[in-house]
């Protein structure tokens, strides 16, 4: 088998594939090595029960950069994003509140609960959208190093400054507040009704080891509305054929540009000789050589597992050990033999096709976090149940349904360690939560896959099963991501790079990390840039 390439990318997650695709497009001879026997990492579609296709990790899509979608011609490679809408938060009173994409409908829905809050939704959406539009400028750019005097960094700082100032002075102050405060405090400034707040607060804790009232969660909320589907900012969609369709499409583009992928090829170590990366050693002992080695693994795994202590600076090892990559999420993927009944919603109500959430107060959201703090999974968990197959018939046969349940919070470690029994008990907690609102749900279950951070880590390799490859807190964002001084995708040794969600702009199926990293690599090789540099808002 060929053992010499221009570049090797470790990990066939969507960012690794994107990175490789652009390196190949830039003219390099590229190999992607993947430990599993399938590609896609956490963006996969797998038939875990005959006749049902599971998006068993990531399950919805919004952050995928449009410019990359177009530039790599992913549609031709089979990718179709299906927008979905209608999220219902059930209340224990039998009532509910729903999120509609249409502003007029949203207004009427919120007005059922509070006229004052209905009026506030306009202000809320305007403010949030303003911040989203600002952030979007930086997604496909390499963060400036604020400690450097290089023209390039100063220029990038200028660019940032301009965009900030462009919001108008008042908004600069508001944005500084927003970035540092909690989602709860932020929402308290707009809304009075607990159910309304809860509906908006749910995005602020997804994948995050913080509570709705922890400072910094307002940004996490923004992180979940800064994406778009075909330019509709804040909208979410599903990849037709499951999330694997995204990975497969990018892989298609990669292969078209001449890149190769090897599965069942777990990397043991990045080989470093005289201070530069020269290739990788697979677990079998086989060595593959390249002048460029890119890690799509999370920063902790990259610098504490597949790189040797002696090959990296001591302070970097410490930084990697201190890196916050906390497991706080679980996943329960379910094959149903019929449509679940939700009595709160009249039969045939369009919302029945949407996704469901089951917490009705900020206190219940916060208490779910308190359980996690004490090393337990939430007894009264936040569950986001997405009925994927309602929007994508390719996932299950007619009459059958696939639903994906995302859960906060589930700790990476429980007392005495995770066992299959504990895992299933966690799964039952989730099903119980759903059954509180859907009496017939349990008898429809044909098969279910319960994943705690333990399963996610062991299968996909995300440390602690953290879905973002690292907490999205200010100390790990922008020029701090993954570590101060390493935010420009370059590793500690020549020829070694990072391209995972542990780098800027962070988690989510965005392809931005992989693309930005490829741009930096091509730059170092003095090759013309082939990576899109901006978004398509303007």
């Amino acid at each position, binding site marked *: 088998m060929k053992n010499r390439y221009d570049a090797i990318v470790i990990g066939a997650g969507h960012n690794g594939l994107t990175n490789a695709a652009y390196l190949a497009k830039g003219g390099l001879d590229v190999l992607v090595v993947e430990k599993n026997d399938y590609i896609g990492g956490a963006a996969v579609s797998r038939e875990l029960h005959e006749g049902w296709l599971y998006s068993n990790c990531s399950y919805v899509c919004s952050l995928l950069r449009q410019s990359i979608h177009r530039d790599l011609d992913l549609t031709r490679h089979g990718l179709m994003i299906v927008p979905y809408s209608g999220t219902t938060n059930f209340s224990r009173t039998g009532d509910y509140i729903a999120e509609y994409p249409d502003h007029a409908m949203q207004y009427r829905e919120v007005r059922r609960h509070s006229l004052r809050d209905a009026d506030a939704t306009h202000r809320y959406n305007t403010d949030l959208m303003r911040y989203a539009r600002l952030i979007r400028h930086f997604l496909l750019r390499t963060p400036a190093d604020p400690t450097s005097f290089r023209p390039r960094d100063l220029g990038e700082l200028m660019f940032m400054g301009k965009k900030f100032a462009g919001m108008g*002075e008042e908004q600069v102050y508001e944005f500084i*507040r927003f970035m540092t405060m909690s989602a709860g*405090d932020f929402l308290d400034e707009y809304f009075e009704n607990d159910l309304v707040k809860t509906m908006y607060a749910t995005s602020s804790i997804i994948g995050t080891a913080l509570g709705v009232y*922890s*400072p910094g969660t307002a940004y996490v909320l923004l992180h979940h509305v800064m994406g778009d589907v075909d330019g509709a900012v804040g909208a979410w969609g599903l990849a037709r054929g499951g999330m694997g369709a995204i990975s497969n499409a990018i892989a298609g583009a990669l292969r078209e540009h001449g890149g190769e992928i090897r599965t069942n090829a777990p990397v043991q170590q990045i080989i470093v000789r005289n201070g530069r990366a020269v290739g990788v050693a697979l677990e079998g002992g086989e060595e593959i050589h390249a002048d460029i080695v890119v890690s799509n693994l999370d920063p902790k795994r990259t610098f504490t597992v597949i790189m040797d202590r002696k090959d990296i600076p001591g302070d970097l090892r410490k930084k990697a050990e201190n890196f916050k990559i906390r497991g706080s999420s679980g996943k329960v993927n379910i094959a149903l033999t019929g449509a679940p009944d939700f009595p709160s919603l009249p039969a045939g109500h369009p919302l029945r096709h949407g996704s469901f959430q089951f917490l009705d107060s900020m206190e219940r959201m*916060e208490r779910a976090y308190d359980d996690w703090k004490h090393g337990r999974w939430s007894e009264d968990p936040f569950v986001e149940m997405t009925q994927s197959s309602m929007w994508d018939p390719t996932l299950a046969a007619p009459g059958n349904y696939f639903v994906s349940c995302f859960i906060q919070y589930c700790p990476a470690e429980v007392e005495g360690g995770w066992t299959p029994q504990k895992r299933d008990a966690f799964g039952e907690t989730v099903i119980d939560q759903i059954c509180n609102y859907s009496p017939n749900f349990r008898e429809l279950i044909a098969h279910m896959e319960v994943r705690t951070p333990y399963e996610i880590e062991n299968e996909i390799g995300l440390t602690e099963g953290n879905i973002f490859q690292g907490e999205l807190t200010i*100390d790990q964002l922008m020029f701090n991501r993954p570590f101060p001084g390493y935010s420009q995708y370059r590793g500690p040794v020549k020829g070694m790079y990072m391209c995972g969600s542990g780098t800027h702009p962070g988690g989510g199926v965005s392809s931005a990390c992989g693309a930005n990293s490829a741009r930096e690599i091509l730059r170092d090789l003095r090759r013309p840039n082939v990576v899109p540099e901006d978004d398509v808002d303007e």
Partner: protein
Amino acid sequence: MSKSPDIIIIGGGHNGLVCAAYLAKAGRRVLVLEAASQVGGLGATREFAPGFRASVAHTLPQLSRKLVADLALEHHGFTLAAQALPTVALSRNGQHLHVADGRLHGGSAADSAAYLDYARLMKKFAEAINPFWHKEPPVPGSGKFRDIATLGQFGWKLRTLGRTDMRELMRMIALPAQDLMDEYFDSPLLKAALSWDANVGSKLAPRSPNNALIALLYRMSGDLTGGLPMATGGTGGLMEALAASARGHGAEIRTGSRVARVIVEKGEAVGVALEDGEIIRAGKTVSNADPKTSFFKLLGARHLDIQFTHRIKRLRTDGYVAKLHLALGELPAFTGLERPEARLILAPTMAYIENAYDEAKYGGYARELPMEVLLPSLHDPGLAPAGQHVLSAQVQYAPYAVKGGWDAHRDSFLETALDNLQRYAPGIRDCVLASELLTPADLEQQFGVSGGHWHHGEFALDNWWMNRPTYGASQYRTPVPGFYLCGAGAHPGGGIMGAAGSNAARAILEEK
């Protein structure tokens, strides 16, 4: 005062007095109106039981020599009863950790070494940021040279930390106390004690991001960068000296004069109306009260635009610290401690603090309450009758809006606090002759501070510097000409520091 004053200062808290003293020193005719019967606000020393005296604010970590010198406070009777109290992380089994003169005593070799690195870095950060506590926050959009210069100076200070430390500062500023401590230390007891200053006084706990470092550096803003001095006569001793200094420079201070409202004519503040109906006119009116009180109770929202009032209304002002004063018949014996002369932190782990916070989040309070305990009478015998003692403690977390109201809970909270003390000082209950518990609700009611919040508004990154209390009032001037802020709600915040008062005075003197 025969002639009407140039400047009226509403509230004789320490910032009001500092502001008055500087203005009077500069030759302005100043009148301070204090509602209470004595000056000093939360810094006043009050008799809470016959012969026993204590002040709500009990130490002076942020006191600066410059203030003392500028206002000749020593000449006016200010002395220190204690220079720099050490901090003791109290353990129930007597294995205490002492943090004194920049070193850790009684800890593991690793922790002791780590503490030196930690202290060095923190000191370096504190010194870099220090000038900015004593400066008006910049308003970048103003186009004024000074604002641009302040920002430039800030950037320059960061860069001169050196690349590595600058990067650390920009990362650590967002770390929760827990992560910060975990990065440096092993001992749970030490971590808990060192995390105390990062959260005390705010609705935050060791796991809360974006606040710890800035709060720690703020408490290191005094000359002793973190050391804890105590004034003779309690903090009230300092208040008396400030008042004397202000009077010495010609200011008039009237106690027992509660201001009902600020008089606004043609959109300008022209004086105040007292509750007894008296009208006093002055060219400038300065409020030492918290922003909510200043703008809503004293000024009136009708004089402000709706955006601005919204920004004041949204300030988080619920206090979470209760103050406990005990009159002790004799010196209590703390397990494994010879003399409780230091500042004692009662919190075995950071989780212990976090759990207490969790209860408070939902309007309750924990059975196990972290505390900061001081026995001021050991350093200043005058605070208690001979041979007897005063115990002064900050107790977290006591939510301002406790479910059911404080009248229903005050007694059981006091009992809970005593139970906690009993665990560290068995038999202390038998020494208690009298007690005073000041919940946030009491502080609001007795001192007129919204929510009973020490800082007049949460001290956190989102309410800091140019965002304190909010833009449009962050430079001590307000949207209403002639009306100014000089209290803890303005930059830099609470704590007996006087920076808000002196910064405000400087801003006012610049006005014609």
